[in-house]
C-alpha cells in the first residue's frame, strides 16, 4: 500500500462553506474567500502543491512542468473548466455530488482558482 506522507493537516482545521445553502442555487456573487476554504476541504487532499499527491502528480506528469502542477498556482483556469472536472471527474478522480460540493461552493472554487473578479452569476451547472 501507498505510504507517501504529505502535509495538509493544517487545512483540515478550516471551516467550510455556508451551512444550509441549497444545492442547486449558486450565490449571486461567488466568493473566492469561501472558494479557498472549499478547495482546502475537497480539493487540497489531492491537489495541494506536493508532488506526491494524486492530482498534483498526475498534472505534473501530463504537463511536464509547462504549466504548474498545483492548481492554486495556475493562471489559466476558468470556472467552466473547474466545474467540468468537479462534476465529471477524470481517470481515478470520481465526480463530486451536490451534497458534497454544492453549485454555490463550485462557483466559489471557480472564483478562487480562476483569479477572476467574481461575476454576477455562478457558472456551474
Amino acid at each position, binding site marked *: 500500500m501507498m505510504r507517501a*506522507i504529505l502535509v495538509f493537516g493544517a487545512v483540515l482545521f478550516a471551516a467550510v462553506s455556508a451551512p444550509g445553502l441549497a444545492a442547486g442555487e449558486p450565490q449571486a456573487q461567488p466568493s473566492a474567500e469561501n472558494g479557498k476554504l472549499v478547495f482546502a476541504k475537497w480539493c487540497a487532499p489531492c491537489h495541494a502543491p506536493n508532488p506526491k499527491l494524486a492530482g498534483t502528480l498526475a498534472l505534473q506528469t501530463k504537463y511536464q512542468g509547462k504549466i504548474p502542477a498545483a492548481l492554486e498556482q495556475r493562471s489559466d483556469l476558468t470556472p467552466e473548466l473547474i466545474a467540468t472536472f468537479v462534476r465529471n471527474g477524470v*481517470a481515478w478522480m470520481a465526480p463530486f455530488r451536490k*451534497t458534497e460540493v454544492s453549485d454555490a461552493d463550485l462557483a466559489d472554487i471557480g472564483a478562487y482558482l480562476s483569479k477572476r473578479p467574481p461575476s454576477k452569476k455562478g457558472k456551474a451547472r
Partner: protein
Amino acid sequence: MAKLPPNLAAATFADGVKAMQSAVGAEWVFTSDPDVALYRDAYSLFHDEPEERIASAAVAPKSVEEVQAVVRICNARGIPIYPISTGRNLGYGGAAPVYSGSVVLDLKRMNRILEVNEGNCSCLVEPGVSYFDMYKHLQATGSKLWLDVPDPGWGSMIGNALDSGGGYTAAPYRGHFEAQCGIEAVLGDGELLRTGMGAMPGSQTWQQYKMGIGPCLDGLFRQSSLGIVTKMGFWLFPQPEAYLSCSVDVQRFADIDPLIELVNELEYGNIFNGMPSVTSPVLTRGNPAMFAEIPAEAEMDRLVRETGLPAWRFSVSFYGPEKVIRAQWEHVQERFAHFDGVKFRENQTVKLPIPLEDMDKIAKNRFGIPSLDIFAVGSRSPSNPEPSHGHIWFSAIIPRSGKGMVEANRVMRQECARLNIPLFMFSPAVTCWTRSFVLFAAVPVSNDPEENKRLRASVLEVIQTCAKHGWGEYRTPPAFQDAVMNSYSFNDNILRRVNERIKDALDPNGIISVGRYGIWPKRLREGRGA
C-alpha cells in the same frame, strides 16, 4: 440518463417524487439527468453498457425524521431506495444502486458528530460524518482520542463500517464494524430501531455494551438490505505515549510456517497491538505493491542467496508507553532468535503527539490521520503514463498460516495469469483482522465495454476457483455480489435463504437496497433482478 424503477407506473413514481420534495425540500430531490449522473459508479465495470446500474433520482434528507418520511413515501408506492452515506465506496460500487431505477438516499447531509465521550473513548455519529470530519473535530477539541482510518479519508465512518472496512492502527479498532457499538436504523416501514443498550429509553451505556438483551441485531445491518443506519457508535483509541515499528527478516522458504504461527501467538497473546504484515522482500523486489508468485522451495532459496534479500519479512508495531513497548519488542526478538540467519531492525520510534513538522516522516494511517494519499498509486505518473478509469477490489479471506498464504498466492497468481487479468496491486497477507489474512488484488477497470465484459467473466471464474479452495470474499462490487453470496453455499445456500426470510419479514415490499449482496426481494428473486 436516469432510469425509472422497472414495473412501476410513471405516475406513481412522479407522485413519490412530489411527496419526497415536500418531505425534504425540493432542492434536495435530484431528478435531472446531470444531477442523477453524479450517482453513477465512477469505477463501474458496466460503464456505458445497458446493464450499468443507474438511479432514477436521488434524495438527500437532513434528519432521521426526514429519512423516515422518505421511507414511508417509498414503501407506500413500492419505490426502491438505495441508501449511501458519503457515496465514496469506490472499487466496491461507489454511490450507484445495485438495482437500476432505485432512488439513491444520499445521507451526506446528516453529518453531525453527536457525541465524543472522552472518558469512555467512544463516539456517536451520523452517516455523513467522514474520517476527515471526525479527525478535524478531535483536533479542534483537543481530544486525546484517535480514529482508525481506511486509506481514503473522505469515506463515511458508518458507511465504511457497514461494508466491513478496515484500517491500520491497533487491533481492537482496525476492523471498523467490530469497533462499532450501537446502531440506530430506519426499517422498511419507517419504524426506528436501536440496537444493544440503545433499546432502553434513557440508557446511559449505548456506546459501552454492544449486546443489550436477546439476539444481537447489529449484524443485520452489515452489507445489508434490511434498514437504513442513521446513527452508529464507535470505540476510539486513546492516544498512546509512543509508537515503535520494527521488522524481523528470515532467510528460508521453509521459515514461513513457523514464522506465521509465532506471529499469531504473539498477537493473540497481546505482545504487540499494531498492525503486523508478512511479506517477502525477495518476491516484491520489483514493486512493493506486487507480490510475485511464490516459487518452489529450492527456487526461492536460490533467489534469496543470489539477491541477498530476505525470504520473508514480518513487520511488527507497538503502541503504548515507550518502556512497555521496548520490553515487548525485546520479547519478540527473543522469540524469533532461533531462526537461522534472523535479522532484527528497528524502523521508527515516534513519541506522541506528532509535532506538525514531523508529519511528513510518518505513515499517516498508522496514526489515525486521514488522507487521500492512496490515490497516487493510480495517478498518471512516469511509471503509469496511461492511467485506468478506476479499479475494483478482489478481497478474499484466506487462512492465517504459512501454508494457506503460499497456496492462496500461487492459486490466485496462476489464475490471474491464465485469465490475463491485469493487476496493479497484489497483496496476499493483509491483517485488518487479527484471525485471518485478506488477499487483496486490485484490478483496473476500462472504458471499453468488451474489455470490461472480459474482466467480469474472468473475475467470476476466480470467485469460483477461490470457493473451491474454501476462500470467500468478504466484500465485493455489485457486479459480483450474487456470485459471491452464492459461493457461501453450505446446506443449499441456507445463509442466503435465511437472509431472504429475514428480508421478507422486515421489508416485505422489498424497497431497501434491492439486490445488495445477493439478497433480492421476493418479486425479483427468480431472476436475481434481471
